[in-house]
């Protein structure tokens, strides 16, 4: 890229972190759009004769380059679809080929150990298949005198060095031959071998032994989490719920225990809500049909759903926002944000008002927002709130700078004007007026203001 050349984008280099902005109306974005147009404008010239261009990769209908592996696989798949199920389900084919010679088993590890050698394994000691993994295992047995005389599991595991494949090989063998009690005891002292063993059991899906092992090692939290994990593979929601119930007694850490309790209660509740709402056809469901089931959704999503479809229900019902809020200890801020989002989405501005209203002990109502009124305005705007509603909330933004910039962004002229008036900033008013359409109501208002003699302007 041209480095020395003074580009038009000196703009970028004025400060360190603001050098790079992702604002819409950004200068460079416009430039990018221009380049796009420039390139597009010459597209016509190029494309008419694109077909004969040997540079252009041949691409099949599936979008894969012809001849690629992906293309090949898709070809097979589509030919299968088109030809239907033409494979023969009929009689088994008569064998023409002689069967392949059977490969010998890999059980030869046993040849390492005295008294554990089965005749078949010994006779078929496979020289080749073992070589790759454990060179030392294919040495003549006489070299393993130490084992012949006095083999013990401890020694074997100690010998497991850095070669992971050997570790696994030995572990598989030990698992098949040793009693669990001895195996677990030996593993307890060897972290590397232990982690290999745990991973092996996870991979082969031997959950039961794994649970037993973790229990034996006193790793109760790991054991609890492992068992809890099983719920993911249970598809039926009632079975899943029942399973989660059995998890409640597992030895989780105190915090996790609460979370798992939440999980169980949530699913239990979701099942009830789902069963009811599936056949409900009250107005709200007709007007806003559900896009998906609420089963297995997170707590906040469930709260949103309840604020959307079950707002105003009494705290006694499972589906009411108040009940969900209480049961799952949802913070005030989180509740406010979620409820606001749901009610604004439904354009229920009066609900928004009520959500913000607080009454003090003298009976005055005052608007409060735990997330700040700026965010409230942004959420309302995103949901297409009318100008009046926006203005009401905008005027509650304390910081005048923030208020003015919000008002300008969302074109609430009254707020801009009132704020400048409040600040007695005549200059800013004049600047703002210059951006307005001459003769518009706002323009008139400012005109009157700046000529008013009743205001003591600061400038």
């Amino acid at each position, binding site marked *: 890229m041209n480095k020395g050349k003074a580009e038009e984008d000196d703009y970028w280099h004025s400060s360190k972190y603001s050098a790079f902005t992702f604002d819409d109306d950004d200068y460079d974005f416009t430039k990018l759009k221009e380049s796009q147009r420039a390139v597009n404008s010459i597209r016509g010239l190029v494309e008419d004769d694109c077909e004969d261009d040997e540079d252009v990769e041949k691409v099949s209908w599936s979008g894969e380059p012809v001849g690629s*592996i992906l293309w090949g696989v898709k070809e097979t798949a589509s030919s299968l679809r088109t030809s239907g*199920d033409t494979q023969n389900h009929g009689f088994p084919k008569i064998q023409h080929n002689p069967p392949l010679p*059977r490969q010998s088993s890999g*059980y030869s590890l046993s040849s390492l150990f005295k008294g554990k050698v089965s005749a078949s394994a010994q006779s078929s000691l496979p020289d080749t298949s073992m070589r790759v993994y454990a060179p030392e295992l294919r040495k003549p047995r006489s070299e393993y005198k130490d084992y012949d005389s006095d083999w013990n599991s401890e020694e074997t595991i100690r010998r497991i060095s850095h070669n*992971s494949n050997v570790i696994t090989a030995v572990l598989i063998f030990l698992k098949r031959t040793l009693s669990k009690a001895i195996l677990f005891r030996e593993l307890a002292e060897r972290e590397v071998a232990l982690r*290999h063993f745990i991973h092996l059991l996870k991979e082969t899906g031997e959950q039961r032994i794994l649970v037993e092992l973790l229990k034996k090692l006193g790793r109760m939290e790991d054991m609890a989490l492992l068992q809890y994990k099983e719920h993911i593979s249970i598809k039926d929601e009632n079975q899943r719920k029942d399973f989660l119930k059995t998890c409640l007694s597992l030895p989780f850490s105190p915090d996790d225990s609460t979370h798992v309790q939440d999980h169980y209660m949530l699913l239990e509740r979701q099942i009830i809500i789902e069963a009811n709402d599936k056949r409900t056809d009250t107005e709200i469901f007709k007007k806003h049909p559900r896009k998906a089931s609420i089963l297995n959704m997170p*707590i906040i999503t469930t709260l949103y759903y309840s604020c959307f479809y079950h707002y105003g229900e009494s705290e006694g019902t499972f589906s009411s926002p108040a009940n969900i809020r209480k049961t799952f200890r949802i913070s005030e801020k*989180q509740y406010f944000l979620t409820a606001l989002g749901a009610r604004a989405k439904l354009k229920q501005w009066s609900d928004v008002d009520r959500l913000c209203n607080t009454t003090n002990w003298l009976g005055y109502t005052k608007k409060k927002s735990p997330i700040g009124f700026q965010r409230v305005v942004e959420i309302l705007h995103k949901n297409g709130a009318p100008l009046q509603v926006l203005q009401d909330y905008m005027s509650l933004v304390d910081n005048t700078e923030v208020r003015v910039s919000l008002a300008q962004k969302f074109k609430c002229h009254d707020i801009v004007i009132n704020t400048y008036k409040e600040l007695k900033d005549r200059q800013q008013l004049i600047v703002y007026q210059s951006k307005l359409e001459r003769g518009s109501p706002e323009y008139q208002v400012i005109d009157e203001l700046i000529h008013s003699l009743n205001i003591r302007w600061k400038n």
Partner: protein
Amino acid sequence: MAQPGWRDAPSPPDFSLLKRLARDQLIYLLEQLPGKKDLFIEGDLMSPLDRIANVTTLKQHEVDKLYKVEHKPIVSTSDQLCFLIRPRVATVKWVSDVVNSDKAAGRFRRYKIIFCPQKFYVCDAVLEEEGVYGDVTTDSWHFYLLPLDEDIISMELPEFFRENFLEGDQRWVETAGNALHLLHSLYGPFSKVFGMGRCAKMAYESWRELQEESEQKSRRADIGTVFLVDRDVDYVTPLCSQVVYEGLVDDIFRIKCGSVEFGPEVTSSDKSVKVMLNSEDKVFSEIRNEHFSNVFSFLSQKARNLQTAYDKRRGMDIQQMKTFVSEELKGLKQEHRLLSLHIGASESIMKKKTKQDFQELLKTEHSLLEGFEVREAIAYIEEHISRQVSMVESLRLLCLLSLTENGLLPKDYRALKSQYLQSYGVEHLLTFANLRQLGVLVEQQPGETLTVMESKVGKLVNDKTAGKLTDAFSSLAKKSNFRALSKKLALVPKSDEEYDLRVPKDMAYIFSGAYVPLSCRLVEQVLERNGWTGLEEVTRMINRHEFAVGAGGGGPEGGEKTDAQRVILVMFLGGCTYSEIAALRFLGRERGLKFIVVTTAITNSGRLLEALLDH
């Protein structure tokens, strides 16, 4: 963009040899099963295979139909089945099922499993247990290394990261050793090896053993120096938002095996286009390492040049026009196509990033890196979570917070975890357990105050004792020590200085001048010192396991270096990001070095965190 080095960097060796070797071995293996056969390919092997062979190659060696492994009953009518798979238990079990259902149906076929890149013992054990050990033949296809570009080689093993660093299964270490061995015999002999990390050490040992067994051939080296880096030495860098073009494209569109699929929003048509992204793409190669803010001006300049070139046609006579068409038009058209794609991509990146308020996000990341206004950053993360913005993004920010702050305060940890589970699902308990195990999202232990004591003790007694103390403590919990490392290695440049992203002065440009990637800084420092001398404090903080072999006595090296010594292979065990590659390319240009990056896989924050989810 860099200051020209004192000498031009040497050009990289020719890695296409690796592709040829892999292809030849595959053909050899296919020929081991003579006659027509159907080939089942593991899904994640398809793209790598595509880079070295095509359907014609396979057909020439009597592959009839191609299938993707889908862990479902098969419909093949062939008498011979060949399975090209990764050495995974689930896949081997599926193959066993295929064999067993044939047996049950009284059907006879020949079966061959080709494991890529190697077979594990556990695969044989599964075949045995399923009772099909004698029915299948097995082989290994040693396709360890796939060159993605002239300076990037990938092992295409994304599972390396989770299995090695989270599960503690070291099965792939040997594979890394084998890959090194292959590189050594083709492009070595290496004269120096540096490394940091436990896995790096083991991979080195594994390679050294192979080295001792094989005979040494004397050849002139192409690559003189090797650097092995464990991913767990630096988790901060891959978790930062990428802002160089190639990194952004990867974060947003996910580059797969050096190729990206641009959807309709980029192509401004109704179809998607797959594009190879490498140095052969003349537009891409000029912007890939650039900070995104520079990309616009470059693309618009290019577009203008292109326009001018086309405009030349006007007023040409027939003869000139003929020359224009035969000599220039094709090049222009090619450029036009690429330019239009990259402009479309930039536009789409802009739109996406504007929508998610990228500016605020970057500000938060920078605060965390600087350790400045951390409470505000936490509030930002909290809001991110409570608004249910992207699940992975929230996790990424939490991890960055924990890594840079050496863990979260217990009350923050509890609150943020509860909020996270409420927003994204309670089952993420499992994710949190994994992140804790890995040490990337942890609670500060009450014992953390020991750190203070430890440093005090360190001043009182000699260094050796302090080292022992640190070892004892670091065995309790893996700490990131980011703040101290950052200070020691000057990772965060002073914020009051202006940073000209167009003329970067150091590797920090890849993160808008806010942070020099730790991994690359370590490489730079060790190369500069020709060893670890003087970095004792740093190595203590990255949990030791550093080594230097063949580097002589240490200390800066005098005299001219040979070309091979200036070609440096950096192998990332557990993955590296495009931003790190861009940083190394920058370093290379500055120092007149050529970096070759070998990685177990290209990663980014999304891939890294997704690997740690338990779904």
